[in-house]
């Protein structure tokens, strides 16, 4: 190999590796121009998402939160970390090693452990989970990066120049600023950049330490994953990417020859990036201020499923009542539960599923009120009160909101036979074409139903039988998914999927090849509804909120946004869209509901048992 | 000291637009201590790196014992280098550092131990084998580098300003050590330095380089006493350098006064450069000198005094063991043998160093 071909090989390798790093980013950029809302379908080129982004309050405020938190956290971390490095560098070697070991913990420790341990601390100390707690967490994991960037610059040899400065008449303060500071500045800057990058990129720690009303891009995206990422997010990421790339190129700008120190270079590499960043920050702060401006007739803290409400509804409620809504989202009942149980945050209105409501009633976490007597409660159909009555017999805690069934969504072009039994999910013909729900109760529940048992079974033999069935099924399964079912089915990625009826409707609307069936062995009917935790501070406002949502026009608005089956009997008449109005999936008849069973909370021991069985299946 | 061990023919090397070596030719005899002497940037280090195999010349060839080695990789050459920078392998002990080239060659462990002992002894580091290099002083580290380079008995040792980082005393003692080493090993040394004292002290042959060209080759005494151009005269030792006029053979006009000299063949009424070493400027009674002047300052230099004498508008530097007090009127007398006449520079690299 001659020198030239070695050079070519090196260049090729660099380019390939950079391509590898940027491949998903290019995919993201492409998606931002995709006219289809679904990841799996290319619907042509559009700039729509960029236009919508400007008006998307949720994404923009999450974005500015991200920047603000990253900025404040990295500045404070840089300050504490630089001071720490200065201090640590003169410590005797043993305490030096100890301090460094402590500094290393957040960097080397698993994010999940760091996040959880901080969450435990905040909850134990009753520190409100919110902006401040996220900020503290970010500062904590940012500091080590700063220390480890600055410390190597404080080599012992530099001590001499510091002493020389003292000798030349500088006081220690001057000597620091004139000698040591310029020396360690590159370390400080790269520490700052690293801290900022880590903050921006963090998801796990923020996820565990955040509270109501505070969302960063990461947590916002994570809650969106459930219903599919909104393309505005890709648009924002594309803009961010272009901005950062531009900054990087400008800062490193070197004119080809001559005037290296010229005005042009100064302007392009310093002034322009500086101005860009500054205007960006001013805009961010302006936006953040705008964000917290609302106030009035007190507030109501709402804790709801992600993407479970038309954002306009919140604005309308605030406008009509003057009550400020603090809106917070969760992804699963189990994430929501400990936050309520620990009392760390006093939520006013929460929207759990029926089995979780039952658990919360059992554990005396809920406030009793006459759910049926709210001004608008009458709009809710009796058959839904009957379902909720199975866990709340006197209807004192729980206002039914949405409901749905679990069934099979199948692709008619791939499945030619009729689908009427769960058995098709065990048919070897469909190896690699089956999507299962990645959740204990759903997966075991349908299997128990298939075997002819109750989906609340606690009988060990029955459960073991169901577990063995699922283990046998595993090689046939393409993936266990929660959030991605819809996108995957729309994109023809699989033939069969266990799915919630609401998702089934959305998928079918986007891909007419899809059809939904509830197997004859029976299935699960679930119901989400509103409750008021016992420790709520604004119970009256919470009632107003719940009642407001039961108003037919509001319920209709939400229905059209989410397209899940509603409990509100008045909605169907108001709906104009024939597809929605006539969907057989969304409007079940009474007899379809009879074979269906609701989940019940099975107690701690049985919950552990279920979880263990699930792990048996997953790790098999 | 007869056969040409190394020969460089018409080497040229250019970095970007700067020509570092310009049609450079030189040969080195076996067992010679040859020093490449010149100011920094003169091309001497580049020359060494071409010899070591770390650079390829743009044109020209390098021969070793008659074989063309221009394209041979560094590890295949029978030359070893002692680098100017600290190139100790800090992750190895002193002994491992020294044993490196033998290990690469797969020499048996017992033989290696033996050789390392000898090498350590040779550089005066007996018993240091197990130390880690970062616990050693600069001088010791430099000895380790030398020991490391000589253990495999290279035919030629290239030394790139190996003593420049050491203090004066250590430098002087290392100079003697190097001469002793060379004699004990019986190999050829090619030594690069910008320190003229070092060059004059140690070398058999000194090659004065400036601007990528050879200015003069010769024994240290010749280089000092008979510089062939203003650059060499100025760079080596101190001197009074004049723009002068060669009236005719054996008579040169300096500062308007005619001085008899011994040089011939410079033509008649021809501009020339003249150098007179300070120790050759004799201060005598005003009447006995060729020209008159006044002592303007006196410095005590240990062995001798250094006097600045203003005469005919020129500050003459004179050295003598006899002190002449400041303000004294003196006469200046020069022995014709001590006037060195040189041709005027035809290229910039031959001009005086201080003016360059």
């Amino acid at each position, binding site marked *: 190999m001659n020198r030239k071909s070695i050079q070519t090989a090196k260049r090729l390798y660099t380019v390939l590796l950079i391509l590898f790093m940027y491949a998903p980013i290019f995919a993201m950029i492409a998606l931002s121009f995709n006219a289809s809302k679904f990841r799996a379908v290319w619907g042509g080129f559009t700039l729509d998402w960029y236009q919508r982004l400007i008006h998307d309050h949720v994404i923009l405020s999450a974005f500015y939160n991200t920047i603000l938190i990253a900025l404040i956290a990295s500045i404070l971390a840089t300050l504490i970390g630089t001071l720490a490095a200065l*201090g640590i560098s003169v410590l005797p070697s043993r305490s030096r090693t100890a301090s460094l070991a402590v500094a290393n913990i957040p960097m080397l420790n*698993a994010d999940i*452990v760091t996040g959880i341990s901080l969450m435990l601390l905040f909850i134990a100390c009753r520190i409100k989970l919110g902006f401040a707690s996220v900020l503290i967490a970010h500062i904590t994991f940012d500091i080590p990066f700063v220390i480890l960037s600055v410390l190597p610059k404080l080599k012992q040899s530099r001590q001499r120049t510091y002493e020389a400065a003292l000798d030349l008449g500088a006081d220690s303060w001057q000597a620091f600023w004139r000698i040591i500071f310029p020396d360690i500045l590159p370390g400080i800057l790269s520490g700052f950049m690293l801290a900022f990058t880590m903050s921006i990129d963090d998801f796990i720690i923020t996820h565990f330490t955040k509270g109501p009303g505070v969302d960063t891009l990461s947590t916002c995206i994570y809650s969106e994953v459930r219903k599919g990422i909104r393309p505005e997010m890709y648009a924002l990421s594309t803009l961010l990417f272009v901005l950062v790339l531009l900054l990087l190129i400008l800062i490193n700008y070197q004119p080809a020859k001559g005037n290296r120190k010229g005005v042009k270079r100064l302007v392009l590499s310093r002034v322009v990036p500086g101005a860009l960043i500054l205007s960006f920050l001013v805009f961010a702060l302006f936006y953040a201020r705008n964000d917290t401006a609302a106030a009035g007739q007190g507030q109501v803290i709402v804790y709801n499923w992600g993407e479970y409400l038309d954002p306009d509804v919140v604005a309308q409620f605030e406008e009509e009542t003057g009550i400020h809504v603090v809106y917070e989202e969760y992804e699963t009942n189990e994430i929501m539960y400990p936050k309520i149980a620990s009392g760390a945050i006093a939520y006013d209105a929460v929207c759990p599923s029926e089995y979780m409501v039952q658990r919360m009633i059992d554990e005396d976490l809920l406030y009793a009120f006459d759910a049926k007597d709210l001004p608008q409660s009458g709009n809710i159909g009796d058959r839904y009160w009957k379902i909720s009555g199975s866990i709340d017999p006197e209807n004192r805690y729980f206002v039914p909101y949405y409901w749905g069934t679990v069934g099979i969504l199948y692709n008619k072009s791939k499945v030619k036979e009729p689908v009427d039994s769960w058995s098709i999910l065990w048919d070897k013909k469909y190896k690699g074409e089956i999507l299962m729900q990645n959740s204990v109760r759903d997966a075991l529940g349908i299997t128990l139903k298939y075997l002819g048992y109750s989906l609340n079974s606690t009988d060990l033999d029955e459960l073991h039988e169901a577990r063995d069935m699922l283990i046998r099924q595993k090689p046939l399964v393409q993936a266990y998914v929660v959030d991605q079912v819809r996108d995957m089915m729309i994109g023809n990625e699989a033939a069969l999927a266990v799915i919630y009826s609401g998702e089934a409707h959305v998928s079918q609307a986007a891909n007419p090849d899809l059809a939904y069936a509830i197997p004859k062995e029976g299935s699960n009917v679930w119901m989400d509804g509103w409750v008021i935790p016992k420790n709520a501070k604004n119970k009256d406002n919470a009632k107003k909120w719940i009642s407001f949502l039961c108003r037919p026009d509001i319920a209709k608005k939400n229905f059209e946004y989410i397209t899940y089956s509603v409990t509100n009997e008045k909605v169907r008449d108001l709906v104009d869209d024939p597809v929605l109005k006539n969907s057989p999936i969304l409007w079940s008849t009474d007899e379809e509901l009879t074979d269906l069973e609701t989940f019940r909370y099975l107690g*701690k021991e049985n919950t552990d048992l279920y979880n263990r069985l699930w792990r048996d299946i997953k790790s098999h | 000291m007869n056969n040409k061990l190394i020969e460089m023919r018409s080497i040229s090397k250019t970095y970007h637009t700067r020509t570092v070596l310009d049609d450079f030719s030189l040969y080195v005899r076996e067992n010679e201590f040859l020093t490449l002497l010149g100011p920094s940037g003169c091309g001497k280090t580049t020359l060494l790196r071409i010899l070591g195999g770390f650079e390829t010349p743009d044109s020209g060839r390098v021969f070793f014992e008659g074989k063309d080695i221009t394209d041979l990789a560094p590890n295949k050459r029978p030359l070893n280098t002692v680098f100017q920078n600290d190139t100790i392998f800090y992750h190895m002990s002193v002994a491992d550092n020294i044993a490196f080239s033998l290990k690469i060659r797969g020499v048996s462990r017992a033989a290696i131990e033996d050789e390392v002992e000898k090498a350590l002894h040779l550089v005066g580091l007996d018993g240091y084998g197990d130390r880690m290099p970062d616990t050693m002083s600069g001088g010791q580290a430099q000895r380790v580098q030398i020991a490391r380079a000589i253990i495999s008995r290279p035919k030629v040792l290239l030394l790139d300003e190996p003593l420049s980082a050491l203090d004066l005393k250590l430098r002087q003692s290392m100079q003697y050590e190097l001469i002793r080493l060379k004699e004990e090993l019986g190999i050829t040394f090619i030594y690069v330095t910008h320190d003229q004292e070092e060059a004059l002290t140690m070398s058999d042959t000194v090659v004065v380089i400036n601007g990528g060209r050879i200015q003069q080759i010769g024994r240290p005494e010749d280089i000092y006493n008979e510089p062939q151009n203003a650059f060499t005269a100025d760079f080596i030792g101190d001197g009074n350098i004049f723009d002068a006029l060669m009236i005719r053979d054996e008579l040169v006009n300096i500062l308007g006064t005619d001085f008899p000299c011994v040089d011939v063949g410079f033509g008649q009424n021809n501009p020339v450069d003249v150098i007179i070493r300070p120790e050759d400027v004799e201060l005598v009674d005003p009447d006995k000198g060729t020209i008159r002047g006044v002592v303007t300052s006196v410095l005590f230099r240990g062995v001798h005094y250094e006097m600045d004498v203003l005469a005919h508008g020129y500050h003459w530097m004179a050295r003598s063991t006899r002190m002449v007090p400041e303000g004294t009127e003196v006469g200046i007398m020069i022995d014709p043998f001590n006037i060195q006449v040189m041709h005027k520079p035809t290229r910039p690299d031959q001009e005086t160093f201080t003016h360059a």
Partner: protein
Amino acid sequence: MRRRSWLAAPFILWSAAFIIIPLLLIVYFGMTDGDGAFTWSNLAAMAEVDNLKALGLALLLSLSATLICLILAYPIAMILAERRTSSGTLIAMLFILPMWMNFLLRTMAWQTLLEKNGVINTLLHVLRLPSVTLIYTPSAVVLGMVYNFLPFMILPLYTVLSKIDRDVLLAARDLGAGPWQTFLRITLPLSTPGMISGITMVFVPSLTTFVITDMLGGGKVQLIGNTIEQEFIQGSSWHVGSGLSLILMIFVLISMAFVAKYDPQQSGSLIGGGGRE
């Protein structure tokens, strides 16, 4: 100068409050049951077959990812370090830049590339090649790990490699070592601190990840991070989760010991040591 040590006070206080105490809380939860009584059972939970399997698989996948990262990163770090100019740093920055795009979005984007009808399979189809199952396999999880943590391997390696004096390498060549021997005997040992630091920075987050597994493993790959996450998020069992986290921290401690042993000066830390002196 001793007086300067009080500057570390804010850091010491901060880390006591937000690093040490939270860890002690994990220890507390890990060693007690729901009623606050002492128990070993949460720690012993790791010995259950499922958890051992999940841990074993996590070790296998994260070690593979670490090895692949090392193999991919070393040449690029060498290439960048060789440049010794600002263009080297610029390209190094190019490897950090993707981290500014959200981690979840980037991982999601891999789905778009890898899935059955995804970009790669579509390309294969166009080229009339058979399609391949890329997504929802352990390999896809490893790919996700490599992709997300590769910069953490490149940066420390780049830092140490660019600090190696080129003359040291020339000296080895001069002393008879060929390019390969020079690499093995000089470059490799001198880059150990960077390697150790890079290995830890890739290995630990890979070992404990649950997001990558969820997104690219399709729920079919159960790693110990998923188990812990499920204990906290789905099972609402903080005690078992904490117990498992404690066990997991053993691996973190081993990594820290490695770093302390091979890189006591922290010279291999990310960009920090990067300035050439």
